[in-house]
């Protein structure tokens, strides 16, 4: 749960802003390059996150009004199928 879960909405918005700022053409060359690099980095991070294969599957249970999460055994599912 420590996984960075800030939304893609925010990142994509940020990206759009960077592109817009660049498009306005009011930045110095150094600023432009900085923005460009920032944008490319953001794209890379987003793509990486989308292709990350570190998902967690958990089962939510509730006992006496308290929630608890346990690992959901996907293997068990596959076994049952056979």
């Amino acid at each position, binding site marked *: *749960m420590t*996984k960075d*879960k800030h*939304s*893609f*909405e925010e990142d*994509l918005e940020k*990206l*759009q802003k*960077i*592109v817009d700022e*660049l*498009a306005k*053409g009011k*930045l110095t*060359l150094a600023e*432009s*390059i900085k923005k*460009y690099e920032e*944008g*490319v980095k953001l*794209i890379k991070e*987003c*793509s990486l*996150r*989308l*292709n*990350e*294969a*570190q*998902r*967690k*599957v*958990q*089962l*939510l249970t*509730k006992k006496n009004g308290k*929630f608890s*999460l346990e690992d*959901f055994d*996907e293997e068990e*599912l*596959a076994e*049952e*199928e056979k």
Partner: protein
Amino acid sequence: MTQENFKLFIPELKTSPINKQVYTVSQVTEEMKLLLENNFSNIWVEGEVSNFKVAPSGHAYFSLKDERALLAAVMFKRANRDIKFKLEDGLKVICLGSINVYPARGQHQLIVEKIEPKGIGARQLAFEQLKKKLFKEGLFDPAHKKPLPLIPLRLGIITSRRGAAIRDILGILKKGAPFVDVIVRSVNVQGELAARQIAQAIRDFEQFKEIDLLIICRGGGSSEDLWSFNEEIVARAIYNCPLPVLSAVGHQINITLSDLVADMFVETPTAAAKIIVDKKNNILTELEGQRNNLEKEIRDVVYELKSRILELKHLLKSPMERLLEKEQILDDLADSLLLHYRHYLDATGQNLRTQVARLEALSPLAILSRGYSLSMLMPGASIIKESKEIKKGDLIKTVLAKGALLSSVQEVFNDKR
């Protein structure tokens, strides 16, 4: 007793006045009661409901009618509770029940045990009626529907942990969107407990919060199997849920109330998972597009700078050209100066040569070349202009045009040339 026997029994009654048999009201009513109740028990009666009302006791009273007749009917609380749809006037129904005679009023009525709508099944009718009611209340209102997240990062799924639905969804997500965390809340998806559990699970996720999309799903089955998803408590729980809800119940052909209330619905659990994969792919496409935009913009920036540099270079070039021009003028000037100087020198030289020539013409040596000679008294070498300057015996040097000679004076003639 059969219908056949009953008909045979009536003529007997009709012949009885001859015997002058007199019934009391109670007796005849009692006879009728026996007759009717024995003959019309557990019969199916078809008719249209009218004058329907439910008494405070919970018993329902109404009439069944057709074009020519009317039959009073009562459905006691116990039976009334079991019916899934709502009875109302005008509804065409088929009732299973028994005729009962109520002696105090001298009336007969049908005690209804079971009632089914005619034409469509009871469940279907119940579904239609509930749908109508919820629609009126605005539960399907598009304005109430929440947008799904751009892409869910933590998914809540309400389904049976042992069903095909969860297996299908997890399989597709694993392949297509393996970054999505999944939290499963396992419930019965059919049977008596199902609707209650589903509704409770929705409220649990509401409380649990840490998800950004809730999928309520179940694999295909008969419409009875899917019935829990048509229950009012499920529909209301979905409606009241602040999280975006995606409903994916059954096959293509089944549309459940949960589908209609949910913020979005798809036909199958597989389709629900595919939506997430599609969303992922859309983002990847957008990222690619933005990368192209970035490339283009930075190229534009560089291009712009380049053209500005060229422009500046151009501006810088002009004074240089002017300088060169001036240099050229200078060169030209220098050239002509040189030329003039040479002219001057030439002219001067010419003059000089003339002067020299004149000078040369005046030179005594030039005279000598014409045959004249020059005599000088030696040893002083003073030029002798008059004979008086010399005397006999003096040594004189005579310079000729070419060469000279030394001689001594023999004689002096002062009066002669």
